[in-house]
């Protein structure tokens, strides 16, 4: 298998949760490749933010897209070649702020791709402003007197929008996260993983996560239970909250390749 490193200097802060995500994704890719998915069939997209830098550190094909639009770009790739496994990396500002609509519509469509949300509860790259997942009271440069908005809950929001695979991992639990990623990529339909990703510079919640994270015993039996468990705060549950099979978008629209040559097309028009 091709080496997954690019040699690009890594510029994440020492101790950043993103390192765990990078390790987990490499593990997952290796496993998927062993499972007979050629690397050429794996494509990544990402938004702009600290999370996006993963693009430069992973020796995989893909698009380092615009802030907030990686999931739209990913859908375009999938529609053009449904054979590809498309994995999109999003920041919380990126995927649930600037690009919220694309995330929810991808879920609504149940298009077969995977969104990995780097939830660090802030805009890391632009120096720690509040994000849609920042807790109330969070002080960042755009909210120095404290954030006054209630954060979204990404798990329940994505369930509501229609995602058919919804899970939560933690960047410090690399093996668990890697298993989630493999499941998500193998899932036929839209899959979403919220990754709890401590940001040592602006939102260092390692202690909180290390204290409270625990694994779900089973996939919840229905959305209600999933919601209940996803919103729990005394325990922060990791694992698969929802997994369901529903018609997939590219299949529903009956996508087919059109091998017609230009002359054949012209002839068809003139017919």
């Amino acid at each position: 298998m091709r080496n997954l490193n690019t040699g690009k200097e890594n510029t994440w802060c020492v101790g950043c949760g993103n390192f765990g995500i990078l390790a987990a994704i490499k593990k997952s890719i290796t496993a998927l490749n062993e499972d007979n998915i050629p690397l050429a069939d794996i494509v990544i997209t990402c938004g702009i933010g600290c999370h996006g830098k993963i693009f430069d550190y992973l020796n995989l094909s893909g698009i380092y897209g615009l802030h907030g639009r990686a999931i739209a770009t990913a859908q375009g790739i999938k529609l053009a070649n449904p054979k590809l496994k498309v994995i999109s990396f999003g920041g919380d500002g990126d995927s649930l702020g600037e690009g919220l609509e694309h995330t929810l519509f991808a879920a609504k469509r149940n298009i077969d791709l995977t969104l990995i949300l780097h939830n660090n509860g802030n805009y890391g790259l632009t120096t720690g402003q509040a994000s849609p997942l920042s807790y109330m009271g969070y002080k960042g440069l755009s909210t120095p007197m404290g954030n006054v908005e209630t954060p979204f809950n990404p798990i329940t929001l994505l369930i509501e929008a229609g995602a058919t695979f919804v899970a939560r991992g933690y960047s410090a639990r690399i093996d668990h996260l890697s298993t989630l990623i493999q499941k998500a990529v193998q899932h036929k339909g839209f899959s979403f993983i919220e990754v709890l990703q401590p940001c040592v510079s602006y939102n260092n919640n390692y202690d909180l996560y290390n204290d409270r994270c625990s694994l779900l015993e089973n996939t919840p039996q229905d959305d209600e239970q999933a919601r209940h468990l996803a919103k729990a705060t005394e325990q922060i549950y990791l694992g698969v909250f929802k997994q369901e099979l529903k018609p997939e978008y590219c299949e529903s629209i009956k996508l087919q390749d059109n091998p017609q040559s230009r002359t054949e097309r012209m002839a068809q028009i003139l017919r």
Partner: protein
Amino acid sequence: MPTEVFSVMVGGKAGEGVKKAAQVIAHLAMACGKHVFQEDDYQSLIKGGHNFSIVSIGDRPLWNSYKQHDLIISFDDRSIRTHGLELNPAGMHFCNADDCASADDSMIRLPMTSLARDSYGPNGNVSLAAVVIFSKVCGLDPDLLERTIHKEFSRDATGAITYLKKLDFVLNQLDLSPLRSWHQASEPESKLFSGNQLIALGAWAAGLDLYFSYPMTPASSILHYLALKRDSHKVYSIHAESELAAANMAIGACFAGKRCAVGSSGGGFALMQEAFSLAGMVEAPLLCFLSSRPGPATGVSTYTAQEDLFFALNQGHGEFPRIVASPDSFERAFTLAAELMDLAWEIQTPAILLTEKHLSECAANVHLDGHYLPDAPDSLNPKKEDYKRYAITESGVSPLKFPGCANSTDADVIKWNSHEHLESGVRTDAAEQIVAMKNKRKLKAQSLSLATKRYQRIASYGEGTTLVFAYGSTALELREAMKYHPFKLIVPIYLEPFPEEELEAYRGKEAIIVEHASQANFAEFLRIKLGIKAKANILRYDGRSWDSIELAKLIREAEHA
């Protein structure tokens, strides 16, 4: 008006099938070997209000619709009030006896609504009445009419035939003498196409597989047309959640090797600017159809304008090569869409086909023959090893590979990057690397200029001492105006890169410049590019198209100004 043109107008409420009637009339005329030009005037509403459609018919190709008519059919009183004075001396005005308070004695009353109710039931629709009247007035073969009705009103063919019979009966009693006696000709070579249909087909001929869009008048009918062709043409229309989604999806699809396009009007393009700039950076062959309407903002949704020239030329932040071209005829809508698709892929940079409601939504009989474009050179055969997405080459154009496709291997890493990047596609902030990539894109701009020279970049029509400049669908209005006053019309089809070479002869000349804008934008453009001096600016900015006879007069006046 020279008698060679016969113009029909149908007016009524939205929902009464005004446009449908006009389409069938156009088809009937074509069946008799005639040329047609159809224009629909409607507003942003679904039922009620006032719509009208014009079908101008001639023995030669027509480039515009006429605004005085030989036959007017008014479905309601408002139509009578609005169009009563647009009748030619020898013409006939039929009105709906069930709603014609303003009718005068010169008009012929038919109880269109009551007969429709009698035929179809309470929701009976008067559309067909116009077709039948037209057929009578032009002396058409009843057989042709009946066959056409069977085909075009198939949803309730029985009702339609009943309605036809009833109308026939009443019309026969009136003992009218037909204005024309047209007979079916051999199967016509041409078909009725709107500009938008031709744009869609041109792009499809050049390989379009996916169309990403969010509806916006006057571009929506591209989406609708392609959506209908899903199974027959294996082309997929994605109605995205927004224009932002559409444009970013399209770039993703390019990356994965599919030819695709996006389309909207000015407001939608305003939302696609960041993605447009992205296409410049990642070097995506993003083909865009921009169909203009009066702005700013929501503006006037269903009318025509050319206000977006500088906007289209300057889309997207940052510097990168782009193509902007505007079709000046129906045929060109087809070939240009294909050309721009090819050019976008050849140079790997975004292209805009700029047009207006007038061309997008008007229809004419168009003969698409074999004189179609050859395959454009492509750059899809990169060297086997050590693939670099942004390899610096002599032309500035780098080889393209697609993931998981026949043209790439498991060893290829294909990275597109919205940040400034190295040849490998990995991001960079380094001063020398930034300069290297910017220089590469500048090189592409030169290659682009060269590449466009393979295509017809300007058109010229007519003869005369008066020089007139226009672009886009204004050229149509002017070509028809030429029938009434001679002048030489010069039309740049390509606006960026600008075809200076072809236009060198006109540098510094005086000319009359005609455009649909409130500021003389195109005139300013010509001044900048060619130093053209405006002898006169003929501007129209009420959203309506010109009457070509009127336009001919304006040009004559401008000559003496």
